[in-house]
């Protein structure tokens, strides 16, 4: 049954991709402009320039992974701490003040503080993703029913036991919810920070191809973006199924 379900999902993905490809092809035929090349042109550019694409994808990938990792560790730790009502009272007031700000407008601040190099890019991605994971984890940690805590205390649990056997597993699905949202936005932020002051990365590739009207290159770069986002999403999904097995029976 497990395997059947997996095949089902894979088929679903294939179907979705085929439909989207066909729609693109139709769009390209109907508009008949060099700005919307056919899928074959895009693919052939993609593969004949694979080293170039991969080279830039690698730079982008490192940026995004570093950013997510920093955000993940700090947001999960801070979120878990909200299990304590006292900690939550303090940290949630920061969350409420900081969460609704459109974080993306703070980019100039990061450039001023950390310069135009890698540091500001990575930290900015981390910054935006941080709030998404924090919000989700904190939501889970503060809603843990007292009865669960009592059950564990009655078995002789200390604080560490409670975090290990109750708080962490309880919020695990929430961690993944946050991570999934975070992965999506990290790729978008990546494009944003790579669209200026760099000569490496998929975002640069997109901007460069666009300004020189090299359309196959433009869409190949976009496709690389999509593939990167999709693969990260799939990895998160697989990890979730592994680590939250009790939810997928």
């Amino acid at each position, binding site marked *: 049954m497990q395997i059947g379900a997996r095949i089902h999902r894979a088929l679903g993905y294939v179907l979705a991709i085929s439909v989207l490809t066909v729609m693109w092809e139709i769009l390209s035929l109907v508009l008949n402009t060099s700005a919307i090349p056919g899928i074959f042109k895009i693919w052939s550019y993609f593969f004949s320039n694979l080293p170039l694409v991969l080279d830039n994808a690698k730079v982008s990938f490192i940026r995004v992974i570093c950013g997510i990792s920093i955000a993940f560790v700090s947001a999960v730790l801070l979120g878990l701490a909200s299990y304590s009502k006292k900690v939550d009272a303090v940290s949630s007031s920061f969350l409420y003040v900081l969460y609704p700000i459109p974080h993306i407008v703070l980019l100039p601040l990061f450039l001023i503080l950390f310069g135009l190099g890698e540091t500001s890019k990575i930290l900015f991605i981390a910054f935006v993703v941080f709030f998404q994971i924090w919000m989700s984890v904190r939501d889970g940690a503060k809603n843990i*029913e007292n009865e669960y805590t*009592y*059950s564990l205390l*009655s*078995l002789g649990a200390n604080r560490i*036991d409670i975090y290990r056997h109750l708080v962490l597993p309880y919020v695990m699905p929430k961690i993944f919810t946050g991570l999934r949202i975070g992965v999506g936005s990290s790729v978008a932020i990546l494009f944003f920070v790579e669209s200026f002051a760099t000569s490496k990365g998929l975002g640069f590739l997109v901007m460069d191809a666009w300004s020189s009207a090299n359309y196959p290159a433009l869409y190949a770069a976009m496709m690389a973006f999509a593939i990167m986002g999709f693969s990260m999403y799939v990895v998160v999904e697989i990890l979730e199924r592994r680590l939250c097995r*009790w939810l997928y029976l």
Partner: protein
Amino acid sequence: MLQAINISKTYSDNTKAVDGISFNFIKGNSYSIIGPSGCGKSTFLLMAAGFLKPTSGRFLIDGNQINKPYDKSVTILQNFGLLPWYTVYDNVALGLKIKGFKKNEIKLKVNDALSMMGLLEFKDYYPSQLSGGMRQKVAFGRVFALKPNIVFLDEPLSSLDALNREKMQDFLLNLWKMEKFMMIIITHSIEEAVFLGKEILVFSNRPAKLVKVIKNESVGDINYRKTSEFFEKCKSVREFIEL
């Protein structure tokens, strides 16, 4: 012995839940607590088990005041006994793990508890894959594995249908007879209270006061339900419960 001395509890929102209850619970005996909905039974139990502090009064175990859960006790709450992310095996093993037993020792005790409960073949199941009755059995399995002196139960069977409920009452009674722990069980059901409690404590409407203690010496006989004495007991308990 567990002594409740003039226990009262007022919650921080000024809800008075328990009012001046005193009682001595004797080692190895079983007690049912029954009373109207929302009267303060759970509050009393959570205090006795060491999770909540009384506003006034104190609980003593063998003469020592309780400030935290007593390490030779286990508490089972209706819907929160099992951790959904652990398998049957890991749920039963959890207490032993926390108490620092060695791995092979845990394995021995858990397998022993599971086979005694007839749950061995389900040891890799998650709680959501079990029926309500089986889930409660697993929670009791934890009791069996830990060998506590006191077991606190807050409506452990109330989510079960009538037939399964009687089966689990038999099961719990046998467990108690075999393990000889002190059992304090809250229930909404008069029959359950009479079947399981050597003494039945009847609480008043909120704030809970101890209205009546009914002796019920025939508890322990698995056929007790079928006797006329049982019906008489149920009737007399009913008289003391305010509706």
